């Protein structure tokens, strides 16, 4: 079973060389730490910067320079700043190749729910509905089950959705899964020392198992 760092590390392998990527809050943010040093990957933050760098040195925080999670950041040589329309423009036109974000639920058709729980305080969708609607690749990083032990991989989302048929792949503490074109979660990889049965038990939506399922490689 993977911890958050492990999930991030596995997702990092999905990030192509020479690509532009938007990372959501939580596990996705950690992905940046695991990009191979010889890979050229530029991170976009949707509040208006391409080329985000590491956190600033203590005492060097700039209040005019934050990421979409409102954290103080730095920028790398070759960075560019822009307004929110251009930022979401490059997202919607698919120039941002990949978005990695968290989820409350994913359906076997690739529907995503991650912004609203009826009856609870709603914080808002922020940029998530834009990011998943764009014609780029959407990867989800999340726990396989919720705090009550219920599967988050479902036949249909029960929560209000963020986007329809937008998720390509899901990365959890147990497995890597891909959405099948005809619906269903294709099991691609098991986390180290996790059995197929464990994954079956934690997956409520249709799980598609073809042949031997390899263990993840990092």
């Amino acid at each position, binding site marked *: 079973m993977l911890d958050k760092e492990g999930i991030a590390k596995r997702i990092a392998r999905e990030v192509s060389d020479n690509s532009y990527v938007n990372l959501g809050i939580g596990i996705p943010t950690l992905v940046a730490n695991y990009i191979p040093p010889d890979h050229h990957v530029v991170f976009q933050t949707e509040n208006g910067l391409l080329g985000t760098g590491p956190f600033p040195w*203590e005492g060097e925080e700039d209040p005019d320079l934050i990421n979409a999670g409102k954290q103080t950041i730095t920028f790398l040589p070759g960075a560019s700043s822009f307004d929110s329309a251009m930022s979401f423009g490059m997202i919607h036109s698919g120039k941002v190749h990949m978005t990695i974000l968290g989820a409350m639920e994913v359906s076997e058709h690739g529907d995503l729910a991650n912004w609203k729980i009826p009856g609870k305080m709603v914080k808002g969708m922020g940029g998530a509905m834009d990011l998943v609607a764009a014609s780029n690749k959407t990867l989800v990083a999340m726990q396989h089950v919720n705090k009550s032990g219920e599967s988050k991989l479902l036949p249909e989302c029960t929560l209000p959705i963020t986007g329809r048929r937008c998720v390509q792949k899901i990365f959890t503490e147990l497995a890597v899964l891909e959405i099948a074109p005809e619906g269903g979660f294709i099991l691609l990889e098991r986390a180290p020392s996790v059995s197929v049965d464990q994954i079956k038990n934690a997956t409520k939506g249709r799980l598609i198992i073809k042949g031997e399922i390899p263990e993840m490689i990092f």
Partner: protein
Amino acid sequence: MIDKRVSGPTEALRDLGDGASILLGGFGLCGIPENCIDALVQKGVKNLTCISNNAGVDGFGIGKLLATRQVKKMISSYVGENEEFERQLLSGELEVELIPQGTLAFRCLAAGYGMPALYTAAGVGTEVAIGKETRNFDGRDYLLERAFDADYAIVKAWKGDHDGNLIFRRTSRNFNPLMAMAGKITIAEVEELVAPGMLDPDHIHTPGIFVHRIFQGKGYEKRIEKKTTRKR
């Protein structure tokens, strides 16, 4: 050229009355018009509709206007950092419309560019789409979203000149240039106000034609919401 200078936030907001709709620049607490928000609190105008990506935090940014119950309605994409906001929302005192962040940006752009509406893929098939036209182009669905029609835009820039030309710094740009274009009356507060000719025309993000009133703000706190650092 045309001199847009006013003495300060009080003069800039002189005709802003109860029930006004206001576009407010900023993302989180980054690039928010601190001086104008304080002046709105002091002025005590009520029943405002505030269109801003976020709603500030308790006691800072738009949070100040929420504490004094001056806001009737918020149109935002994310409002998670404010307890008073949550209280007013749950008690029904405050009306809230949540819209995708890109849609917020594009609806400003459309207003600024004289476009009545725009198509975006954000929100298709979600509850955001309820009551809106969905239209298919080349096999993909899009929602028709209308341009904003707000009375005022209040923005904050780094530098500005007498003609209302604005330059923003780093990620404090965010919605500010878009809202500046979208307001029927646009008020800009700047950290540094310079004479015409001091700014390179090629460096200007918002041409002065979009700005009606400008002043140099004072005492910017520029509060940091989440200080994250590396240790040396």
